């Protein structure tokens, strides 16, 4: 029998498309409609159990051995409760409900909790502390924007439906003709696939975004540039872009990791926010980060309302302490302070810099995930989890902080619980051990 689930939310990228249709046949996902290629792959791979983690495992004499869930939870709780300074890392590809339990676990353990922002949009958040944040929901872009700029972002690859759902192609209330009513500008170090669609492409020299933003600010604020080019961009181009920005009726600047992870980092974003603030003296302008993991935003939100800070929180004082550069995952790891790690829905062994990974390998690791990864392969306890948004419900926040309810379309593999339940069991046990 075939059952069609409609209005399903794709729990892959921060675009968080919620119009997916999923056909389920005999308990397996048979067909996926409306999702992009990467989203479709995620849905379809859920039902390929040969690629999944299915049994809890504990390392014994150097080898991972299948055990009962109770044993795995017990071992995980012992490792974490016995640590002086555990690091709880990951969190961006799971639900807010799991994040919430993780935060309490970190508090009870007096540990450090951090998510993948630390290696992607952390700098954007730090810039918000300095300069504020001038933004909107994506529907404002859809209905109003006549100038769309992507800076250091290539949505054609990373967020394939971003242009068609929100920014360029949709017909909006005030933009009835869709892309014909809008201008697309791309600023990047190379001509990406997104840039090929743009009416204007501005090639900035690598690592010199800050200068280009400063030049734009100068021109926007009525000054004449004393030099012929800045960051590889001619004065004419800068003046033209500044004029486009000032004269549009609703402009949006989407930025990606090209801006957050190039030299200047949070200062780039700070400067970009200031540029947008300047532009608001002349017209309507907003800015938005292109968040990657589907619920990276949710983690910052939950941590902010529960503990006051968006990432990198250290509970060793009993309350939340936040100091990026000190309490961020890689800094804690590289200073060699951690003596145990809990990794949830993430693969730092593949993604972290070598000095961090070297230290990780020296400590016991508890990993909760859906699929095997290099991190689960080196872990001492591995607990499989159901997939939020496919096998269990939950909450996720889109890149513009719009919260959506993730749906369940199929049952998880037999015996596999949600990470929420697994974390709750670990938390209960840790509380008992800690007394």
């Amino acid at each position, binding site marked *: 029998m075939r059952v069609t689930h409609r209005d399903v939310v794709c729990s892959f990228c921060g675009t968080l498309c919620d*119009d997916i249709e999923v056909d389920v046949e005999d308990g397996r996902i048979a067909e996926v409609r409306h999702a992009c290629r990467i989203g479709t792959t995620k849905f379809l791979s859920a039902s390929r159990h040969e690629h999944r983690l299915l049994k809890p495992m504990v390392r014994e004499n150097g080898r991972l051995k299948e055990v009962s869930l109770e044993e795995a939870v017990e071992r995980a709780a012992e490792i974490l409760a016995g640590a002086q300074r555990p690091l709880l890392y990951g969190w961006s590809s799971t639900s807010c409900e799991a994040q919430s339990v993780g935060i309490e676990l970190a508090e009870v353990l007096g540990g450090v909790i951090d998510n993948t922002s630390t290696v992607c949009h952390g700098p954007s958040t730090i810039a918000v502390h300095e300069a*504020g944040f001038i*933004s909107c929901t994506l529907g404002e872009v859809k209905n109003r924007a006549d100038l769309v700029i992507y800076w250091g972002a290539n949505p054609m690859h990373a967020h394939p439906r971003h242009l068609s759902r929100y920014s360029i192609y949709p017909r909006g209330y005030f933009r009835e003709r869709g892309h014909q009513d809008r201008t697309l500008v791309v600023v990047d170090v190379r001509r990406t696939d997104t840039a090929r669609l743009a009416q204007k492409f501005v090639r900035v020299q690598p690592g010199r975004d800050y200068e280009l933003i400063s030049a734009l600010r100068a021109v926007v604020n009525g000054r004449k540039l004393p030099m012929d080019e800045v960051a590889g961009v001619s004065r004419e181009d800068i003046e033209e872009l500044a004029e486009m920005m000032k004269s549009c009726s609703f402009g949006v600047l989407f930025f990606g990791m090209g801006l957050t992870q190039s030299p200047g980092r949070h200062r780039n974003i700070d400067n970009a926010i200031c540029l947008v603030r300047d532009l608001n003296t002349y017209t*309507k302008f907003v800015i938005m980060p292109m968040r990657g993991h589907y619920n990276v935003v949710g983690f910052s939100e939950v941590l*902010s309302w529960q503990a006051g800070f968006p990432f990198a929180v250290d509970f060793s004082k009993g309350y939340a302490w*936040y100091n990026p550069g000190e309490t961020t995952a890689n800094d804690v790891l590289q200073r060699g302070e951690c003596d145990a790690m809990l990794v949830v829905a993430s693969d730092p062994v593949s993604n972290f810099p070598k000095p961090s990974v070297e230290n990780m390998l020296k400590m016991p690791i508890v990993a909760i995930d859906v699929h095997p990864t290099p991190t689960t392969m080196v872990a001492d306890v591995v607990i499989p989890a159901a997939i939020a948004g496919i096998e269990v419900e939950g909450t996720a926040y889109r890149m513009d902080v*719009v919260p959506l309810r993730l749906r369940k379309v199929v049952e998880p593999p037999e015996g596999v619980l949600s990470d929420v339940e697994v974390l709750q069991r670990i938390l209960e046990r840790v509380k008992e051990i800690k007394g």
Partner: protein
Amino acid sequence: MKLVLKNGYVYDPANGVNGEKMDIFIENGKIVEEVSGAKEIDCSGMLVMPGGVEIHSHIAGGKVNTARLMRPEDHLRNVAPRTSVTRSVCGYSTPSTFLTGYAYSKMGYTTAFTAALPPLMARHTHEELHDIPMLDKGALTVMGNNWLIMHYLSEGRIEHACAYAAWLLRATKGYAIKAVNPGGSEAWGWGRDVRSLDDRVPHFDITPREIIRGLMEINERLSLPHSVHLHPNNLGRVGNFTTTLETLELTRDVKPSRERQVLQLTHAQFHSYGGDSWRNFSSEAESIAKAVNSSDRLVLDMGQVVFGDTTTMTADGPMEYYLSSLTGLKWANKDIELETAPGVTPFVYSEKSPVSGVQWAIGLELALLVESPEKVMLTTDHPNGAPFFTYPKIVAWLMSAKSREEVLERLHRAAQKNTVLGSIDREYGWSEICWVTRTAQARSLGLESKGHLGVGADADVAVYRIDPESTDPARDYEAVERAFSATALTVKGGEVVVRDGEVVKVVSGRTLYVDAGVGEELEREVLKDVDYYFKRFYTVNLANYPVQEVYLTSPEAVKVDSGVR
């Protein structure tokens, strides 16, 4: 669970009880006539009141969290570690959800309504409310710049507007209709604002006057428990009192459907400004109070300012931009498709500033010049005028002319010159304090089992360690402030949750929302329009918009059969 609170001085003005020594009997979470074999707690020499009710405080949701995210410096000012009962907490003007619950409870509050819930973000607001312990909760759904509302009203389709508003309350699990700078936040979508009741909203064939009048009509046709809750146009602008008076005039032709006001003028302080430049900025509290005194259709909450560093946040995007351009401080803006435009910026109210001084005086003038305490509610529009934990200070100011004078003397002379506060010698008594901190709120919200201690009321009680017989609040205002800062006992739903100012038990309260029924045929028609709006203009599917009950702690639908067909 049974409990007797013995021998306290009870203030329950809604039931005509004003300081009588009596016992309060509690069983199964309710106030009852009598219980036997119950645990007794001696409250002799103490002040007993119904649990406090907060009607307008920004405690949960998108802009509150944006403020937290933007202001890490705010959190490090106030921290406490986890205990065996409570979670770790932090935050000053933007406290964490846990701290919000604990801090209100310590002050004797048992219910709180968050001031503005943007529909598309409703799930976020409820996620945060879920994490606010100790309190019964509710949220006010913003509709003053809603496209569908504006369209229906401009086309004169009032029944459709009613049915849509009812649907929106249900979908967002909201409790009442809130409007913020009607028309202005939509104009902000183009970086503009509206500055008078008769400005046209760009691209929408409607004016703020028509929106406000329309929302009141919707509210009364639906016969909702609360009235329209209005943040008028021109908040914070010099000379805005004329706009406010014109707005209050609009209530004249609205017939109340229940025994309550038809409009709550919220954070009235911010709307009572005279003068024509910041140089001659002055109080017009007298004019506003006069309008409220002469009408039985109006109530207000103060929006009191207390000096210090705080964070401003409203769904009034253009106002926050304007304010941040005055101060040069960081600014967050978050326009929400088809609905509203919240903004956030930090602010410091300084005793040395002539403007802040006048603002401080205006809030108190309003509370003291409106004759009936039944029409006044103590708020700071948390955290816009000040964080909510400054309430005990405000209670003391209301009860003591001397304490006000002391402040007035320290302020910039404009506060004396451009206000009449110094000449007001009215001092509130305990009953009046009871009205303005709980009873008036419960009345205004239509919460029949709150704000009083009659039989059948919720067993939400605050016991303050102060003897009303032997205390002269006019002189001992510091003792008043101390007592109201930390209860001897807070009882929530019949359980002792705070003892001697410490949380001893964490409970999660109920979440109240309004479910107003309208005719099926009408509802179907309106849902067709809603569907069209979602297909064409929203970026989420209609099916993913309504908030599921799983997000609410002990959800409680207040059913209303409106008669709208």
